[in-house]
């Protein structure tokens, strides 16, 4: 008899993927400015380290919050005993207000519909347990966060069927892609229970357009299924077109209650506030039954009351939150620009993005062939020769080889500059044709751009183009 469960002995935890292998290599040889300047620079970790000083100064000015005190009185005992899975009311109130603030107050949330969980990892798993049976499926647009394979499938027994998105339209979700995925599930005899999207997207760093959001809502109305919107990067939007949350579109469309009840949001403070260690996640649902079931399930991963209290005070400080949101976004934007221009300098382009802690980088021109193997080969080169840990698109289930997710917010400016330099050196020297190749591509593309401008002008004047 097998001593352990099937779950324990299978690979569904997903940790054999390249996403995690890169981490392991990094652990063996981690970059350090002084102690290991030749080490691997970690660019595979979507952490937000840009705004800690804001948090630290708040803490220094608000010692009571972390010292288990309220109005100078010790509340240690109260906190130590507090294990109510409904969560600390003051914290939930502060959290929903923060969420509303991030959405420009265009939506409001009821704290009674919020369930606290140990990180978004737990939130996503818990929602899946609530909405789907083992053997049923969720549709997820590719590319997607590698952790979903573990979080949504491992212990729940639920399947993921990808909604394939491509660079042809900047990886946006289309109606046909949705239908295709639904049919694929049916072919595999999998009952689809919902669609899960990440907005802003990981790994793309883009916010979903109103059109895409409407498309999704129409789709779930038609199929009678759920929609989960993982909005953990909502506070990292630094540029137009700005963040439109699913709740906003639902309100605009004046959907009826039955549809509202099938839309659920996941949130976390790991990305926006840069506090992944504190394990603060949340599920927001309009369906009372989901809230009730998820609340009970949260027993398996409650947020430490010590942390709930600290953050309730932090997030209730409106002066702090509004300044933080603004400043944090400004810093992300700056850092994003650094990465984009640094890569451009090496002849490498990124998908145009306005959010997230990373860029979706196009290195297709550096591939030996348009294959997964070639992508892996390039990835390994970048890991071992260039000594940068970046995430290959295949680990995010991207169907087009050659895309990589590169993080920019988890290191100092100096380190980022160094990483860009290493990349440029690599492109310049390693691909002997690389320089010519990328230059060719670049000039070819510039020519195309000029041509299309010219074509437009010509056709406008009713004349045929001489060249394509």
């Amino acid at each position: 008899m097998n001593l352990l469960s099937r779950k324990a002995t299978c690979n569904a935890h997903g940790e054999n993927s390249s996403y995690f292998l890169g981490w392991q290599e990094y652990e063996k040889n981690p970059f350090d400015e002084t102690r290991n300047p030749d080490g691997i620079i970690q660019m595979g970790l979507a952490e937000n380290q840009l705004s800690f000083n804001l948090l630290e100064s708040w803490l220094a000015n608000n010692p009571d919050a972390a010292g288990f005190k309220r109005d100078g009185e010790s509340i240690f005992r109260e906190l130590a005993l507090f294990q109510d899975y409904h969560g600390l009311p003051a914290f939930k109130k502060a959290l929903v207000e923060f969420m509303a603030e991030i959405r420009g107050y265009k939506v409001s949330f009821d704290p009674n519909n919020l369930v606290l969980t140990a990180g978004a990892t737990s939130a996503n798993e818990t929602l899946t347990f609530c909405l789907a049976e083992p053997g049923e499926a969720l549709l997820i647009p590719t590319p997607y966060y590698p952790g979903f394979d573990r979080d949504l499938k491992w212990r729940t027994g639920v399947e993921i069927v990808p909604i394939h998105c491509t660079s042809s339209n900047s990886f946006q979700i289309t109606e046909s892609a949705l239908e295709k995925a639904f049919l694929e599930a049916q072919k595999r005899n999998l009952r689809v229970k919902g669609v899960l999207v990440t907005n802003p997207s990981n790994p793309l760093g883009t916010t979903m357009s109103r059109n895409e959001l409407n498309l999704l809502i129409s789709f779930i109305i038609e199929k009678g299924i759920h929609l989960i919107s993982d909005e953990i990067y909502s506070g990292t939007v630094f540029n137009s077109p700005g963040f439109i949350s699913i709740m906003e579109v639902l309100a605009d469309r004046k959907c009826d209650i039955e549809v509202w009840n099938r839309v659920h949001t996941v949130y976390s403070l790991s990305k926006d506030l840069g506090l992944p260690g504190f394990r603060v996640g949340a599920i927001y649902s309009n369906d009372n039954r989901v809230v009730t079931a998820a609340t009970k399930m949260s027993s398996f991963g409650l947020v430490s009351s010590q942390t709930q209290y600290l953050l309730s005070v932090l997030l209730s400080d409106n002066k702090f939150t509004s300044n933080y949101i603004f400043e944090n976004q400004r810093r992300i934007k700056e850092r994003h620009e650094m990465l984009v221009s640094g890569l451009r300098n090496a002849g490498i382009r990124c998908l145009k993005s306005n959010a997230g802690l990373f860029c979706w980088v196009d290195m297709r021109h550096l591939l030996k062939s348009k294959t997964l193997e070639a992508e892996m080969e390039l990835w390994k080169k970048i890991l071992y020769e260039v000594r940068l840990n970046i995430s290959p698109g295949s680990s995010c289930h991207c169907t087009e080889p050659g895309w990589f997710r590169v993080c920019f917010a988890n290191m100092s400016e100096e380190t980022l500059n160094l990483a860009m330099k290493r990349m440029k050196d690599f492109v310049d020297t390693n691909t002997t044709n690389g320089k010519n190749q990328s230059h060719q591509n670049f000039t070819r593309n510039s020519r195309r751009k000029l041509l299309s401008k010219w074509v437009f002008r010509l056709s406008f004047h009713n004349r045929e183009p001489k060249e394509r």
Partner: protein
Amino acid sequence: MRFIQQNLLSKIAISNGHGEEIPYFDGWKAYDSNPFHPINNPQGVIQMGLAENELCFDLIQEWILKNPGASICTAEGVNEFRDTALYQDYHGLPEFRNAIAKFMGKVRGDKVTFDPDRIVMSGGATGAHEMLAFCLADPGDAFLVPVPYYPGFDRDLRWRTGVQLLPVHCESTFKLTITALEAAYEKAQAANIKVKGLIITNPSNPLGTVLDRETLRSLVSFINAKNIHLVCDEIYAATVFSQPGFISISEILEEMECNRDLIHIVYSLSKDMGLPGFRVGIVYSYNDAVVNCARKMSSFGLVSTQTQHLIASMLSDDEFVERYILESAKRLATRHKDFTRGLAQVGIGCLKSSAGLFVWMDLRRLLKEKTIEAETELWRVIIDKVKLNVSPGSSFHCSEPGWFRVCFANMDNETMVVALQRIRKFVLETKEPEMPPKKRYCQGNLRQLSFKSRRCEDIMMAPSMMSPHSPIPQSPLVRATT
């Protein structure tokens, strides 16, 4: 074209598998709607259904005040804030694991040492149990659990895992025997149910008793023979306040042959240190593959690093830890003595116990008849009239009606006195078939075997009660409270 799908939520979401519909929680509701307060609501319901340890907060509070750096977010500790806030490695902060390993050793009188690399975090003991069930069993498989047991197990081990729990019925002495285990095992085999392991809680919830060496050894032999797992929930390890003392499974492993791949310990700081709000659960497995798998699963319930940091500092303070363990045991002993003496004064006996935050109170003689219904009726009277929230034995799957778990460590002395007064009043006013006028004669030391009054013997000497002179070893089980 739109169509409405049926069953849009999962079965587990809409089922009662979370187990919260049971009457056990009615008592809580009664308390929540009318909570006792010495000044503001002296007629309110006293909560005696919550196994919390509130006796030593002053010690912890004092330590926290003296060690502001432990709270990383204070001015003294803020320089460590960033690294702590970023750290999400599921291995857990090394200093945290080291401190926990050391603490677990100290709680066991330093008779064994624990390897920090085998320590895996979980969302409280609640998360630990579920995690182990996911690692050790497939849906449909079963664990044997001796009754009476902690009601939360029904949810923790079964709800999302699809694993079954098979009760092991002990004789009315609440003694866990190999005969009972074998019977339960055979029954499972006959029903084609695959038994993957045995879950024991030692010290026991709700009994408050500890397992003796002989029983532990026989358990190890049993699970080795059957090649099934042994999950030892030791979350009450530091609540032992008198003899017989606590023997951990980890000690037994040093003394006898055992396939260590079968042994796993669940631990937590919720009971021993009274910190349920901080959600510090631990899975300690002697099986490398389980450690590996559990560690990956711990992603679903890691301990907040803010808390890891605090606990690491606190439990690394050897002087504080040693003082705490001693003082906690002392205060529990005093509270237990005062409480059981107060009960004995009105002829209410309790199962002799040396651990836990509660007593297993014997109210069988107050039952109209020996049925669960009568027990429930009595329980409702206790909640509604006596205004005490105690937990009826049936909620712990106890097959013998009339037993109640009563918590004593979650209140101050004054409240306990009020509770005892109410119990006394109730008992003295309650009519019962044989109302011995000289009942008071038999009060006092529960430990005495010889009683002048036969009626007293009925109360004190019921077969299910243990005495220190009894050759029958004690047996535990179960834990309590949500």
